[in-house]
């Protein structure tokens, strides 16, 4: 198999681990399909939010009153850097199979991820206390909390998954299964970053700009 031959879209093992690459064909393709299904879920939440953020404010506060752009910007940076760190974890796995450096990069990714979730929770806390903007107040806030909350929940489950992967790397080393799982987690993580682009643009920036 030549270095460039791809059996499935996206991140892959072509070149360094032909056997793993072949085994990846089905599972990674399957995981892509899962991601697409998940993306449709997010799309529907976005569409709902788009309608609710204009039509569902009722007596409650509007977007511009409750959003904190600085926090959103920092969150964006955290998630972006953690995606980047995961990329390097994956390269360390793909080209070196070095446990220490993979785990180190994963730790960086995880810490950034935890910081992201922490900041979001803090946002929620501030909104709820300073602005009395809880999801029960209006359709707009319901949609806001559901959309960002679903994303945060995804990130959190990604973190749990990451912890389990760290254990599996320690226990099993880089056998085929572990590699394929780490690759899927990477796709998951990067995809959440893409969803976040939508959130910071269509929720935060649109909310404040209009």
């Amino acid at each position: 198999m030549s270095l460039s031959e791809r059996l499935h879209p996206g991140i892959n093992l072509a070149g360094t681990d032909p056997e793993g690459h072949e085994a990846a064909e089905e599972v990674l393709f399957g995981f892509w399909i899962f991601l697409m299904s998940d993306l449709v879920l997010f799309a529907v939440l976005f569409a709902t939010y788009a309608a609710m953020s204009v039509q569902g404010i009722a007596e409650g506060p509007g977007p511009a009153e409750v959003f904190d752009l600085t926090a959103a910007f920092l969150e964006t940076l955290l998630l972006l850097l953690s995606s980047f760190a995961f990329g390097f974890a994956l390269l360390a796995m793909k080209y070196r199979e070095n446990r220490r450096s993979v785990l180190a990069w994963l730790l960086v990714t995880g810490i950034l991820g935890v910081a992201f979730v922490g900041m979001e929770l803090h946002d929620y806390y501030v909104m709820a206390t300073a602005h009395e903007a809880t999801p029960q107040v209006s359709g707009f806030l319901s949609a806001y909390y559901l959309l960002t909350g679903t994303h945060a929940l995804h990130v959190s489950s990604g973190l749990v998954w990451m912890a389990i992967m760290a254990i599996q790397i320690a226990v099993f080393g880089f056998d085929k299964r572990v590699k394929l799982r780490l690759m899927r987690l990477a796709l998951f993580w990067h995809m959440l970053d893409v969803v976040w682009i939508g959130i910071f643009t269509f929720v935060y920036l649109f909310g404040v700009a209009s």
Partner: protein
Amino acid sequence: MNWELIFGQITWNSFVFAGAIENPSLSEFIASGAGTVAVLGALASVILLTVKRWWVPLWRDWLTSVDHKKVGIMYIVTALVMFARAVIEGALMRAQQLSAVDNSGFLSADHFGQLFSTHGTIMIFFVAMPFITGLMNYVMPLQIGARDVSFPLLNAISLMLTIAGAILIMVSLVIGQFSTGGWTAYPPFTGIHFSPGQGVDYWIWAVSLGSIGSTLTGLNFAVTIYKKRCPGMTLFRMPLFCWTTLCTSILMIFAMAPLTAATIMLALDRYAGFHFFTNGAGGNMMNYANLFWLFGHPEVYILILPAFGVWSEVVATFSSKRIYGYTSLVYATMCIAVLSFAVWLHHFFTMGQSANVNAVFGIATMVIGVPTGVKVYDWLLTMVGGRIRFTTPMLFHINFLLTFILGGMTGVLLANPGIDFQVHNTLFLVAHFHNMIIPGVLFGMFAAVQFWFPKAFGFRLHEGLGRASFWCFAPGFLLAFFPLYWLGMMGATRRTYMWTDPAYLPWLALAMAGAVLILTGFALMVTQIVVSVRRRAELAAPLGDPWDGRALEWSIPSPPPDWNFAVLPEVSSRHPFYEAKKAGTAYRSPTAYEDIEVPRNTATAPLIGLFACAWAFGLVWHIWWLVVVSFVLMWAVVIARSFASDTEEIIPAATVKAANEAFLAAVRATPGVTRDQEMTAANRGRAVPESLEGGAGVLSSGATVGVSR
């Protein structure tokens, strides 16, 4: 002692029997009767399993199995059990509506509301969905020459989630009440304000479990078809059933998500006071209709496409011809699949958007008629010049063509917003969708059972009883539902438990007669299965090819071995098996056998199903400890499984060889039968291909074909 901590909102009054004691009435007695039947049914199964010592085989050979064939059969059994309940509910509603002209009949309004809600929910999510899923599970891997689906464990998990949902609905017969919000559960009626109590929560969680299962199934099947086809099986060599399976899978992947979103939002409204669909505080209940039908319309194509696939297989086989217009059927299927995402608004033309919006979606809807029409012509032309055998599946097919066209035309009528404004929410609509779903999907599945049963179990179904059941089902359907078109045009609204217009009476009586015929048909079908099991020796067709089939599934023994194919086939045409039979190259011994790796059985899936069911039950009744515990356990199982190694076992080449050579020897020793003898005891599953009949004397000896090395 705080009982609520332990039992949540369950009290003695939650049990259905309490209703009959407190408020004795026929309606309550029927409810209690249903509850009793559910409890007794469960008890009877437990006793039967214990007495026959079937617990271990049930667990070891079935529940823990990840074999696509067994998973498929379990799906279909689930569907049939749930069908028995839901069809009785249908007949009960017919009886109520007949008895309730100018009086309130024998059911309370609330009970009637539960009936149409459970009937609709069960029929769609726990009859039609598991039926098609089971069939695709069983047949598709065999047709593409694969040993299993891509993710066998995931497949078993999907099954168990579906069963968990079905169990939840069955539990609602005994504990608490079901929703009265119909299968669509529109808020604000289903919001906490107008529907306090657990009914809607039962609906939410049962449907969510089913829909998660279906999403995973869609994913699994799409990957299987993309990645597991045998050598030479290009996409355009796949049997049509595989094409429709592929398109249905893709619809499942994308269409279930909006439903999940809608149920989550409804749940948040109900449990946590959110305002997605409420009347006040910026809620917008119209978005619910929008989200629900974003799923709902593709859903009807999820159901009908596999049936289209079945019809294509059936008509070709029993016309002894190849399917007419293969390519056009494939493209028509794709068109339908894509278009089905662009028409959802036709379910709420009357909700107040402007005429332009309605027009766009109305036209898009009518356009779907075109590819569907193409299919109908293809099926008709397949029969032209063929040698048609009027077997049970073929009878169902002809009935399908005749009635489905009528149903389709009423669909085009409804696609016109102007007409829809007149008849929406009437029995005209009820007639329309039953007209599509019963002759199309349900009878399609029945035909499929008749057609593939000998493959799955090694013996044919009794043909006489099959035809008898057909002759009850087909006229029964016409009688039960065509009067509803008239009733609808007379103004009879759907979901209505009593009437005041005596002009409805004769039509309702006809419909009742039809329902009775349908029930008779179902009874005959059950009888047919029982009788066939008893006479299985006489009906045996272990050699695998009772109908002179064309695709790969007919080339292997019936029932197929665990590994399906002794060696993976290599194909070079659309009708590999048929052509091999014609050329005399079928049933050759392969040059070499290899060890085969198959996944081991595992308790993972049934455990996940169990905890999912407990989790959902906890949510319905606000039993929070159960929710937390079962949720944690469910994921613990997943995580534990991810640490398991040694999940595969090897079947040695020698075992495979012995089994396969025995099969081939049996085939060679058996004379082939011609189509005249198809329904006789002579049909052991070796067919003389139609094109060789007549001059086929040489072949029927078998000796000249089975050249082995």
